[in-house]
Structure formats: structure tokens, C-alpha cells
């Protein structure tokens, strides 16, 4: 299969650079699939699972926020969070989920609720991605 150059950048640095065959990611507008020779393209990333096919093998990851761009045949994921499924700390995500749910029950302040909801969403995405 034809490959394209993929770069994954997060605030923690460059996470991945290399050839990939296929990329599926959740954007704010739904899932998109990028193959080689895609046209110039920019979109914002939502929260969800990303799947990258490298050498015929699919790697899953939790991918949250940021953007996805294709320019000159190079694909870039600039994500606030990008964690490969095997690197996700399941226990921590589970704990984060419980904590967030607990907080949602107690809080009345809308701001605190917003924060707790965002935390819960992130925990759920991590848990889903690692499955």
C-alpha cells in the first residue's frame, strides 16, 4: 500500500515520525480517514480513538483536541493528548473517571461542572481507546 509521511506532535514533544498507510481520527465533525495523496486539508480534532496503520498493523490511540493537517502530502496530527493504547494507564483512567463522576454529583457551580465533565470525557476516551 502507498504510504504517506505522518508526524504526531504533542506538547510533550514529537511522538511519532514515519511512514503510515492509513490514519483514522475523530474530528469535531466526525471520523475521517486519511490515505496517501490526500488533498490539502485542515480540521480540528475532537475526542476519540485514532487508528494508525503502519506496515499493515493497526495501532490504536486516544487522541484529544488539537488539529489535523495535510499539506504537501505530509500529514500532521497536532494533538493536546495523543497516547498509544498500550501506553495508557488503565487504572489511572478508571480512577479519574470515578473521581469525575463523584464530583459531578456533588458540584453545583457550573464552572466546576464543566471542568468535571471535561475530565470525565477524557477518562472515557482513554478507557475506550485502550480496549
Amino acid at each position: 500500500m502507498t504510504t504517506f509521511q505522518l508526524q504526531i506532535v504533542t506538547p510533550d514533544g514529537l511522538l511519532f515520525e514515519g511512514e503510515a498507510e492509513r490514519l483514522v481520527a475523530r474530528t469535531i465533525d466526525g471520523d475521517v480517514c486519511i490515505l496517501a495523496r490526500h488533498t490539502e486539508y485542515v480540521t480540528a480534532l475532537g475526542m476519540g480513538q485514532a487508528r494508525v496503520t503502519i506496515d499493515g498493523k493497526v495501532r490504536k490511540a486516544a487522541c484529544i483536541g488539537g488539529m489535523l493537517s495535510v499539506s504537501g502530502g505530509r500529514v500532521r496530527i497536532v494533538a493536546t493528548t495523543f497516547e498509544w493504547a498500550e501506553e495508557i494507564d488503565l487504572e489511572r483512567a478508571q480512577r479519574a473517571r470515578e473521581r469525575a463522576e463523584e464530583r459531578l454529583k456533588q458540584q453545583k457551580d457550573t464552572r466546576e461542572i464543566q471542568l468535571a465533565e471535561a475530565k470525565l470525557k477524557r477518562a472515557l476516551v482513554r478507557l475506550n481507546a485502550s480496549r
Partner: protein
Amino acid sequence: MAGASMKDIKLRIKSVESTMQITKAMELVASSKLRRAKERVERSRPYFNLIHQTLTEIAYSTTEFNSDFILERPVKKACYIVIAGDRGLAGGYNNNMFKAVMAHISELTGDGREVCVLPIGKKAVEFFDRRKIEILSRNYMIAEDVSIRNCFEIAGLIAEEFRSRKIDAVYLGYTNFVSMLTQEPAVVRMLPLKYNRSEAKEPTGPKALTIYEPSCEAVYDAIVPEYISGMIYGGLCESVASELGARRTAMDAASKNAGEMIEDLSLRYNRARQGAITQEITEIVAGAEA
């Protein structure tokens, strides 16, 4: 007489010595932490540069581009994100920051505008509590522990408040790390966003048509919070570096002072000792003569 004062001086020397040990340790800790803080900034830089670049490209790719985030509107309520330290003993670091912010705030409130703050760092929370200024969130008490994830949370919160028109302007108060010896407090406007035309790349030759999905505005609005968090994180790292720099300098000066004091005190101690011996000899001689 002389004996008691000798004991006093000895005690003081001991206490100054132990203080000096503490200040020296704090100086060393600050230096090593400073190095790590700098590395942290370097690692996250490419990410925020890419976001910034995309934002500018979007803003200039279409002529009729409009977003809530760049639209100026009359300011009824402004929000300040103020980054200060968690502890004192850092020279004028905290004070300089608060002075700069308060000067800015009083200018706004003078015109009858409302103000709220989002303090980062224990000292900042305490300061604004005392002034009875509305505080948006108290979740970020410890500046040193605020991670990049927290910055995203803060940015999300701020962007939401801004879009729902609860606040009309957002400022960031942080300390610029100029050098090891100089740190300058600064207050900059974050929202609405302002662009320099010079920063946008001039299109060279035929430009490929980029598809923005679902639309320019949607993509733009979605990644603005990321950009804001980048600014906050940048400001935070600068501030933490400044705090450590200020503490290092302050502790360096304190250690030097302690050294001087010890020197001075040991001189006095030796004089007192000599005085005591001389007196004793005089007494013995006087006793023998009698």
C-alpha cells in the same frame, strides 16, 4: 561578663551558620529546578508554534473571515489570569507581579468596569482574597504543579466564558524571564486575539487550495483554546523560571550576607576571647603582686 558575651556570640554564629546552610540549599535547588523548567518550555514549543501558524494561515486565507475571538467589543468585565509563586523568599518576585497587575486593574475599574481574576499560585490566591476581588477558580493553588493539562482546562474555561460574553477581555499577568538577574512583570492581552500582519506568510506563487472542514471558522474556533493554553503555559513556564531565578539571586545574596555576618561575628568572638584572657592575666598578676 566577657564569658557570657562570648557564649552569646558563639550561639549567634551557630544560628547564622544554619541559616546559611538553608539559603545555600535553596539556591542550589532553585538552580537545578530552573534547568528543568527551561527544558520543559523547549519540548512544548513546536506544538504551539504549529497551532499559531495554522491560526494565522486561516485568518489570512479568507478575506471575509470572522470569529468571536478576534472581534473587539466594549469591555464590561475583564478577566486577569495572574501567575505568581507559591512561596515567598524570592526577592520582589511576587510583589512586582501584583503591583503591575493592580496598576492595570485600577485603570479598568476606574472606568467603572468589572474585574475578575484567575490566580495561579498560592501567593496570588491569598493576595486577591485579601483584596476581595472575584476569583474564577481556586483549583490552581500550586503554580509549580500546574501541568500542561491544567492549562488546557483553564483555557477551555476562559474561552467558554469569553464566548458566552460573560467576560469581554482576558489579560495574562506573568513575569518575563529576561536573564538570571532580571525578571520583568508583564500584563498582556490574550483575548480578543490580535494579529500582526507581518507574521502572516505572504503567499509565494500559486497557493494550493486548502479544505477546511467543516469550515474555516469552526476549525479556527476549535483550536483557539489550544492556542490560549499555549500562551498560558508559556507564561507559566516563564514565571516559574523567573521565580526560581529571583529566588536564586535572593538566596545568593542571603548566603553572602550570612558569610559576612559570620566573619564579623568571629572577629568579635576572637576579640572577646582575647579580652577575657588579657583580663585573666591582669587579675593573676595583680593577685601575685598583692
